């Protein structure tokens, strides 16, 4: 038999105190878990914003190459400036500026330093000011994405390496041999070898992956599943595996080469000897010597240690978009102060483009604007009357409840389904125009409708019955009460809900992709029936482009989108604070 008084004594026993300590630490643990959960969410948000904003900084500025160009009156017809070949003129200007660049590939790489858009910008300037024809002017040519990224150090850098020796040059035919009085190239050999071994390991990993795939397809074939297809795939994978292994062995052999002269190629670091604007890109090196082709002009046969530079591009040429020639030319241009950096106006004024340096978000922003216009008109002018009806006129009938359940369910339907609705009804059935803001706007409007109806009903419900009763007592009809008294009072709440609904719609992507708003559209739309794209879809498309320069632009477009969302949410908060009424 248990005595309760005995049990009572347990509360003040030392065991109870010890137990309490444990219970308290269990409480601390729960609290810590909560703080951890919040910290993790906070960290996720910070990481997300950090990575987006960090990447976006790459798109703040753009590079220009400042060059003098002769606007030859023979080449340009003053009456038809548009027809002149500005692109050709720009190319010959480059050819004249760097006469030592010869050969088809090097020339093409040189031309690729300036954007294809630069010639059009030059043309536009001349068309605006025809008196320039015949003059020689200094013009800032927009740099290509590759040049811009090199100048922003995105591909690594050509950097000076330490050296102590004096060099002497001997030229035989095209090849110039450099002999240094010190083992200046020795450190490079170590890193070149290590680099080659690492590369070989990477290839072996890929070979192993191919082998894994081969086993799977072989097994499928053995199981009698699509024998021919799977067998062919297995053979293909086997061949790829062997190719990777062969390449890896080749690299290892290259690294193991112990001879005095070591071949450099596009898979190793690039090494240069530089005097002023002139370079020798080394094809072979040994500890004290190297050889390669001259780019520019070397006037002396020998140079003291202080007069030449040993330059190294640690990233192999195959691992970067910018070629050695381009990098050398850009270094020369930078040293000659010909590189100018400006705020990236293209990004904020241009429409879409396949060339990253010419691509901008203005077209998408305008498209978003038209789409949002249609959305707000549709959702607001249907949503608010619907809310008034449900809140003020509809009794608590079965039909009303059905409509309510409907609205709640619609709010939770995946957005992609709304896209398919738009596709089949507006484009399929009504034959409306694909990728126009009007269709996109209506689809987003249908999606936003439940949000606005729910918000508007809450706002209407918040108006106290005393207001209604007062107006009723003056002989106003139900409709007059709603329209003249209830609606104006609930308007701030309705508008807040509308803005928040719009903010959600502004970021929606999937339904718009369904109705074909993913087309490549360069022009800025003039109205809701023009072809257009919208900001989030633009982000989606750019994120998919392989050009590295689009990464920064995608991030910058996200920043623009987030900015719009921030402004809208801020407006909603202000509106709510300003008109918040306590009845």
């Amino acid at each position, binding site marked *: 038999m248990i005595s*309760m008084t005995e*049990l009572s004594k347990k*509360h003040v026993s030392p*065991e109870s105190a010890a*137990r309490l300590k444990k219970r*308290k630490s269990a409480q601390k643990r729960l609290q810590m878990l909560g703080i951890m959960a919040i910290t993790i969410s906070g960290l996720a948000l910070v990481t997300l914003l950090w990575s987006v904003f960090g990447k976006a900084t790459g798109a703040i500025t753009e590079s220009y190459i400042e060059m003098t160009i002769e606007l030859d009156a023979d080449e340009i017809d003053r009456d038809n400036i548009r027809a002149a070949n500005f692109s050709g003129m720009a190319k010959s200007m480059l050819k004249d500026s760097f006469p030592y660049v010869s050969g088809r590939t090097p020339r093409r790489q040189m031309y690729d330093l300036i954007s294809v858009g630069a010639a059009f910008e030059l043309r536009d300037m001349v068309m605006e000011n025809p008196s320039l024809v015949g003059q020689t002017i200094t013009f800032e040519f927009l740099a290509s994405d590759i040049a811009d990224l090199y100048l922003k150090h995105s591909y690594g850098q050509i950097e000076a390496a330490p050296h102590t020796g004096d060099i002497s040059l001997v030229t035989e035919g095209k090849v110039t041999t450099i002999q240094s009085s010190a083992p200046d190239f020795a450190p490079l050999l170590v890193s070149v070898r290590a680099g080659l071994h690492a590369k070989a390991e990477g290839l072996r990993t890929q070979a192993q992956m191919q082998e894994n795939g081969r086993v799977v397809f072989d097994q499928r074939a053995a199981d009698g599943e699509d024998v021919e297809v799977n067998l062919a795939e297995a053979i293909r994978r086997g061949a790829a595996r062997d190719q990777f292994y062969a390449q890896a062995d080749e690299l290892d052999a290259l690294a193991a080469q112990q001879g005095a002269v070591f071949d450099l190629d596009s898979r190793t670091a690039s090494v240069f000897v530089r005097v002023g604007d002139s370079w020798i890109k080394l094809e072979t090196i040994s500890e004290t010597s190297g050889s390669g082709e001259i780019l520019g002009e070397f006037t002396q046969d020998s140079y003291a240690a202080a007069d030449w530079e040993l330059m190294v591009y640690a990233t192999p040429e195959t691992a970067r978009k910018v070629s050695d020639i381009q990098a050398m030319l850009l270094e020369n241009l930078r040293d000659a102060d010909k590189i100018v950096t400006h705020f990236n106006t293209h990004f904020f004024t241009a429409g879409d483009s396949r060339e990253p340096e010419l691509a901008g978000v203005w077209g998408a922003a305008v498209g978003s604007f038209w789409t949002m216009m249609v959305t707000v008109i549709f959702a607001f002018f249907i949503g608010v009357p619907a809310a008034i009806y449900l809140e003020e006129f509809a009794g608590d009938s079965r039909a009303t409840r059905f409509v309510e359940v409907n609205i709640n369910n619609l709010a939770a339907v995946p957005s992609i389904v709304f896209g398919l609705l738009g596709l089949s009804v507006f484009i399929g059935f009504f034959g409306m125009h694909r990728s126009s803001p009007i269709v996109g706007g209506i689809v987003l409007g249908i999606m936003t409708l439940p949000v606005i109806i729910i918000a508007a009903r809450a706002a209407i419900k918040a108006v106290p019955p005393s207001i209604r009763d007062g107006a009723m007592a003056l002989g106003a009809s139900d409709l007059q009460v709603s329209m003249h008294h209830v609606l104006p009072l609930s308007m701030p709440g309705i508008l807040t809900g509308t803005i928040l609904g719009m903010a959600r719609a502004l970021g929606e992507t999937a339904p718009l992709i369904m109705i074909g708003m993913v087309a490549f559209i360069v022009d800025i739309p003039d109205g809701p029936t023009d072809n257009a794209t919208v900001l989030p879809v633009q982000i989606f498309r750019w994120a998919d482009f392989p050009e590295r320069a689009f990464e920064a632009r995608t991030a910058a477009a996200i920043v623009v989108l987030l900015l719009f969302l921030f402004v809208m949410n801020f407006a909603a908060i202000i509106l709510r604070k300003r008109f918040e009424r306590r009845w």
Partner: protein
Amino acid sequence: MTNVKISNRHVDVYYGDNHAIKDVSIDILDKTVTAFIGPSGCGKSTFLRCLNRMNDTISSCRITGDILMDGEDIYAKSVDPVQLRARVGMVFQKPNPFPKSIYDNVAYGPKIHGLVDNKTDLDEVVELSLKRAAIWKEVKDRLNESGTSLSGGQQQRLCIARAIATAPEVLLMDEPASALDPIATAQIEELIDELRHQYSVVIVTHSMQQAARVSQKTAFFHMGDMVEYGDTTEIFTNPVDQRTQDYITGRFG
């Protein structure tokens, strides 16, 4: 011979700027039912909640003065409110059974405080508590049903059983019968009278008849002051203060 269980000296309670309890000194006796009466908003519930430090859960609440239980200051740093509340049980105005089975409701206290080591003992404590709360007969066949499935009066007795099972020394009751019908009220009052033999019981009530029926001692509260404290029979037949007399004769309330 009855000892002083809880001794209160110059207790003041503030809710923010609101001075809710003003300089109250009162000795609560062991094995006695003490009733706090007074008009609503007079501070009787607030004072009751000081005795098991339930006011600690309200951040704006501030308490000064001394409250000693068996001579030990319950607001001392060394006293943990969690441990204190195990010794000072409480029953609320509205029955608040947990959404668990009847058995688990009663076993909750003994389990968290580790009062028993095995299932047999726990079963025994549960049965004993339910019996003492005079509800065993009604629920003994449905211990696995939810506590919320009981009627209001049964729920309140379940809550009393739940408080008893924790083996407290003092039992605080905040208008325990106000939400119940007359029959359930009578059962609860009968129960309180039983409990007096084991515990020090403090009951807040706005029903003077109830105070007269169940308590031996009565304290009258008015606007934060404790106006009068004494034997229940004395207070009801021969009040000293004019306000007490006005209240018990129904002039205000």
